[in-house]
């Protein structure tokens, strides 16, 4: 159990050092602050609409138990009733008028009893409303949104990796006039907040006719200064002799880039891939201004449109949020391992 050993490491040998206590308290607070909302979101995404509105709220998706009683078409909600004699019985509710409810014993469907609603309590059971998820795929144009998001994320990430690595290759491995100034210029764009260039970007997208087109979301964000910087710094560590050896080996510049530099930058590419996937997948502002027709919506836009002015279907919204979170989590979990192995193998060399 190496992981457990790692997690339970302490400074004090025999007993906890005061810094251990402080560290663990700090870590647990952090874990709670960051992870609890996600956990609650996940649990709540399995609640029915009524269970979400219930007060006091529960963590797990409890909902009222229902039973099928002979003579009634729909399943009836089950209550625990305190009868006059002080005895407890589980009864189903047939109907309710004011503070009086007509209850029926499940075993004897013909006998009904009038009960004050203060004398009964609903019977809850743990029930996962899978329909929140299954409905999504049938209902709405969820599939389209998902596809739009996936398409934008995958294509934009591939293009980002390609173009940024080419720029980084040139900036790290070629000597040319103005090399420093080009690099500084690229880095300088980091200082410009994306919201500031939002209007010009919109105008350009409009001019080239990419409004309401997924490419209008993909192309403006392909070149990222962060990506160029990250890859360049990594490529600087690739020895020049390798590239010279490839040049002696009759390799064209493209082949040097494709066969030598790219494979060797894999760890940095993985990092950038993670960033890019997260940026594109979570991007809201750019899709919002570029895509206005609902068939082009990404998941983020669809989530937003779920929040209606008068009515919000929270159960679907939460389920969709979970689905929206999943890919990024998976990508991160998968590529993070790749990064650590990349660092490890680089260390051996």
């Amino acid at each position, binding site marked *: 159990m190496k992981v457990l050993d790692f997690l339970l490491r302490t400074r004090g040998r025999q007993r906890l050092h005061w810094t251990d206590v402080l560290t663990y308290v700090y870590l647990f607070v952090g874990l709670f602050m960051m992870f609890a909302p996600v956990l609650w979101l996940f649990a709540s995404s399995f609640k029915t609409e009524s269970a979400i509105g219930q007060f006091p709220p529960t963590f797990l998706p409890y909902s009222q138990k229902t039973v099928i009683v002979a003579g009634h078409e729909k399943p009836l909600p089950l209550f625990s009733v305190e009868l006059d004699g002080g005895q407890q019985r589980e009864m189903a509710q047939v109907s309710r008028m004011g503070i009086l409810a007509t209850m029926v014993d499940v075993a004897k469907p013909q006998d009904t009893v009038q009960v004050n609603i203060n004398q009964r309590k609903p019977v809850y059971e743990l029930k996962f409303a899978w329909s929140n998820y299954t409905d999504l795929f049938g209902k709405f144009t969820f599939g389209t949104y998902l596809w739009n998001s996936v398409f934008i994320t995958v294509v934009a990430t591939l293009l980002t990796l390609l173009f940024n690595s080419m720029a980084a290759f040139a900036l790290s491995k070629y000597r040319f006039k103005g090399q420093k100034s080009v690099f500084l210029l690229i880095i300088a764009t980091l200082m410009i907040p994306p919201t500031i260039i939002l209007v010009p970007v919109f105008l350009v997208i409009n001019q080239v006719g990419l409004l309401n087109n997924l490419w209008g979301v993909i192309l403006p964000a392909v070149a990222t200064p962060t990506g160029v910087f990250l890859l360049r710094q990594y490529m600087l560590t690739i020895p020049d002799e390798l590239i*010279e*050896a490839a*040049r*002696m*080996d*009759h390799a064209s510049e493209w082949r040097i880039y494709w*066969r030598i530099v790219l494979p060797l930058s894999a760890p940095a590419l993985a990092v950038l891939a993670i960033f890019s996937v997260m940026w594109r997948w979570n991007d809201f502002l750019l899709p919002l201004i570029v895509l206005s027709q609902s068939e082009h919506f990404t998941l983020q836009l669809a989530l937003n449109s779920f929040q209606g002015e008068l009515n919000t279907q929270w159960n679907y919204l939460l389920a969709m949020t979970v689905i929206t979170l999943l890919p990024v989590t998976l990508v991160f979990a998968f590529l993070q391992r790749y990064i650590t192995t990349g660092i490890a193998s680089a260390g051996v060399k």
Partner: protein
Amino acid sequence: MNVSALELRSIEKSFDQTQVIHGIDLEVKKGEFVVFVGPSGCGKSTLLRMIAGLDEPTAGDLLIEGQRVNNIGAADRGCAMVFQSYALYPHMTVFANMAFGLENARVPRPEIERKVQEAANLLQLDTLLQRKPTQLSGGQRQRVAIGRAIVRNPKIFLFDEPLSNLDAELRVSMRGELRELHQRLSATMIYVTHDQVEAMTMADKIVVLRAGRIEQVGTPQALYDTPDNMFVAGFIGSPRMDFLPAATVLQDAAVRAALPSGAQKVGVRPEHWLRGSAGEGLAISVLGSEYLGAQRLVLGKLSDGTRVEILMEGAAEPRVGEVVHMTPHPQRWHAFDAAGCRINRSQT
């Protein structure tokens, strides 16, 4: 077939304002094993990189097999280079490393496999073809780097200090292997090193460089027997030659008789001292000694304070403070003038 494999005509190289190569003329014949040797910073690697095409000369002409190649890229010059760090592609197998150059030259697949297999057999790499460079030992990596050069069947092999990363024992055996390889392939090889022992043991022809200039070109024996100047005399040969002020050496009657006029320094290799009887030769007070097995390296001091090193055959250990009388071997000492150039004694 009288065309030389490589010809340099007044090659110069400057980086920004600093000139590092000052007009080098050199001719390398086909099948020759030429070693560039010199202290670090003398420009030998730069020279090699210019021959390879990785750096461009600032002035002068570079000819390979009679053809001017100044404007031809590294790939098309027909040279193959073995780098100091081997520069193996770490993400490729040994096979892929060796095949990469051929793939780039669009050689058909069966031929690639045949050539790589051939080179692998030659270098005893056949069992390692599927390994990655990180899984190989230093010597094996070295062989792969050489194999990568061989498969392309180059006109000239270029080696940039290829043995400096190996341990001493492996270096000696690789030296022999490289010599053997040179004979088997009868290829032209240019080899850069700062280690004069490597140069002496391997070269057909040694080029001694200092500060961007050629000091002397010649066979190892020529450099050893008749160094042109004090730099070459001091650089070639181990232990280093002793340089004695001419005025002091006059105490030795034999030398005094033969000393040419204008001589400022007299050079004697540590192994070229003869024991003289008391009263003749030079009086040397012993400061210490190192035991080398068959011989003993004695460190001594002349009457004027000049330190000398003398190799003595396994005789009894001279005690520290003892005065011994030694005389240079009559045929094997050299006289140098004020500029450091050797004065030819037979002419005077």
